[in-house]
């Protein structure tokens, strides 16, 4: 800012002189190079500490590599062959998927319910929002410690209560499904409120007059919820599922600390894939195989990402057709329900969450309502 006064002198010099001054060349260099200089730290650091290790994982997986002895012979795809035939690897994948499903689906349902309850003209709004976010500030380690005790088989809170109402104690740690439920509960407890707030933001982006119009047309609250709210927040729901997938497939802390003495239970009944990776690398000290597991999991996560993306695209484009309601709605569609279907979930706020979503809802907005409504009406 202090250079303001020098500037006119420099530019008038440029008009008279054909050769750019040193100052101008400096300025041109500044303009050209600065953008790259600003993004360079990110890309360099990310390449060094993010991408390179990931790529090098593949190299390690091709070798016989020991934690202490270091690099051994080149074995090609031998590690992959062995891991793919490894019962424990498939067991860990099964456990990961099971815990993932047990945590994602109930979580989404409850989060939507909470969001719908919060999406009203509440008293003490901030208090209720903070209260559901409270679990988020408890770290996963503390969550695992708390719930490991609550789900204790002998003196755990939950078995105590079950006993008091006459139900036999559940072997929360030793049986497969109960242990998965216990671990999923930890995940659900910590993340449900968080996701509810994301969904709440999406719900609040739905213009209120759409609800008013639907109400005037006689749509009951429940119908309004299923016909207006749910379709409108769909992109955000997809976003929540995608982030839950990336995190859920790499779950480690909760199963590790559920029983800290083992790596996922005495019979590996809740050993997740990252936990198996950890066991392979630091207990069995086989870095080659551990890298193989990491690389396979990487591929699985990428595949899941692509799958998610494809599904979300399909849902986004085939959009409202599956949400068409009964005859009552169809009759009234022209006036009330149509605009609701086509709203981008988190529109106006600058940092819209769904990285790959923003382009899609507007497409819907532009093309859908005029085209589809009459067609389905007939």
């Amino acid at each position, binding site marked *: 800012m202090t250079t303001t006064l020098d500037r006119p002198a420099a530019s008038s010099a440029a008009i008279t002189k054909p050769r750019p001054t040193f100052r101008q060349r400096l300025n041109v260099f500044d303009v050209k190079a600065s953008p790259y200089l600003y993004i360079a730290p990110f890309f360099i650091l990310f390449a060094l500490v993010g991408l390179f290790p990931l790529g090098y994982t593949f190299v390690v997986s091709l070798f016989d590599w020991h934690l202490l002895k270091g690099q051994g012979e080149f074995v090609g795809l031998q590690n992959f062959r062995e891991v793919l035939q490894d019962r424990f690897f498939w067991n860990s994948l099964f456990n990961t998927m099971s815990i993932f499903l047990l945590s994602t689906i109930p979580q989404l349902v409850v989060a939507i319910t909470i969001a719908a309850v919060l999406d*009203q003209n509440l008293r003490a709004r901030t208090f209720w929002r903070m209260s559901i976010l409270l679990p988020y500030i408890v770290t996963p380690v503390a969550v695992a410690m708390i719930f490991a005790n609550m789900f204790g088989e002998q003196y755990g809170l939950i078995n105590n209560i079950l006993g008091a109402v006459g139900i036999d104690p559940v072997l929360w740690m030793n049986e497969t499904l109960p242990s998965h439920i216990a671990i999923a509960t930890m995940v659900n407890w910590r993340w449900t409120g968080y996701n509810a707030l994301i969904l709440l933001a999406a719900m609040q982006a739905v213009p209120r007059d759409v609800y008013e119009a639907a109400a005037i047309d006689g749509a009951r609250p429940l119908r309004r919820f299923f016909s207006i709210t749910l379709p409108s927040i769909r992109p955000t729901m997809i976003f929540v599922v995608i982030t839950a997938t990336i995190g859920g497939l790499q779950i480690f802390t909760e199963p590790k600390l559920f029983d*800290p003495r083992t790596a996922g239970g005495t019979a590996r009944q809740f050993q997740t894939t990252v936990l198996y990776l950890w066991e392979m690398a630091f207990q069995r000290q086989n870095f080659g195989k551990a890298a193989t597991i990491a690389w396979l999991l990487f591929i699985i996560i990428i595949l899941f990402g692509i799958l998610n993306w494809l599904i979300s695209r399909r849902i986004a484009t085939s959009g409202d057709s599956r949400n068409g309601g009964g005859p009552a709605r169809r009759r009234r569609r022209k006036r009330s329900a149509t605009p609701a279907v086509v709203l981008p979930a988190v529109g106006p706020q600058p940092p819209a969450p769904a990285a790959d979503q923003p382009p899609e809802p507007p497409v819907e907005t532009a093309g859908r309502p005029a085209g589809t409504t009459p067609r389905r009406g007939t």
Partner: protein
Amino acid sequence: MTAIDTRPQQARTPGARGRTFKRGMLGNGRRPGFLTYGLLCAFFLASAYPLWWSAVIGSRSNEALGLTWPPLLPGGNFWTNVGEVFDTIPFWLALGNSVLISGIITVSVVTFSTLAGYSFAKLRFKGRNGLMVAVIATMAIPTQLGVIPLFMLMRTLGWTGEIGAVVIPTLVTAFGVFFMRQYLVDVIPDELIEAARVDGASMISTFWHVALPAARPAMAILGLFTFMTAWTDFLWPLLVLDATNPTLQTALSQLQAARYVDYSIVLAGAVMATLPLLALFIVAGRQLISGIMQGAVKG
């Protein structure tokens, strides 16, 4: 809670049909009913009870666990248990380490994300769109799976056991860049940047005097979430740090492994470790909520 009963009558707007308000989907101006607050109380209990229960057990002794119905109020054993926690793990060292690690990571992520986000949002350069797509694509890449080469690298450098080893892998995040870019693209008018340039400000001074002040709210939110993510990280510190120089999370896990049978001490530790974040939550809870609602993502 006592005020609920009076609300419905008071809130009823003329001309509207009463039955549509019961579930309160309409929002504006109308007050929701008893059912809503009942549900909210249930959510509140589900959120808070596990924490409260830990505080209750953590302030008693192991016998409290044997009772069929759990006690509802804390006992007088908390400080004894705290003493046991201090004897078992280096709590203050771990706390200091966690603050230091999360602080360094936060400063680094916020600085580099703001710089790169500004560049992507407001500057014109060749390859901008391609590079931005690369940033978005990397958000979906689970870089945590590179732990094995990273561990080998840290061992070769002789950094295992040092705080630097924990900090290195998360100095930048693709999400941070994306987040700052999304925010800045709308918030800074191009005219403002041009005006600064015409006045002869260099690129960096334009960034400093125009972009940075505008970016501050987003930087705060990004910083808050980066701090949380770094604070809660467990796997990587567990791999590179040892028991003598832990973070709070790895120290807690040692406590659980060492005191596996004495739950009251384990839970006292869990409560102690939660208190700093609880304080942060009370101070910055509103920002956290608005950050999430503006689309901050879990790390």
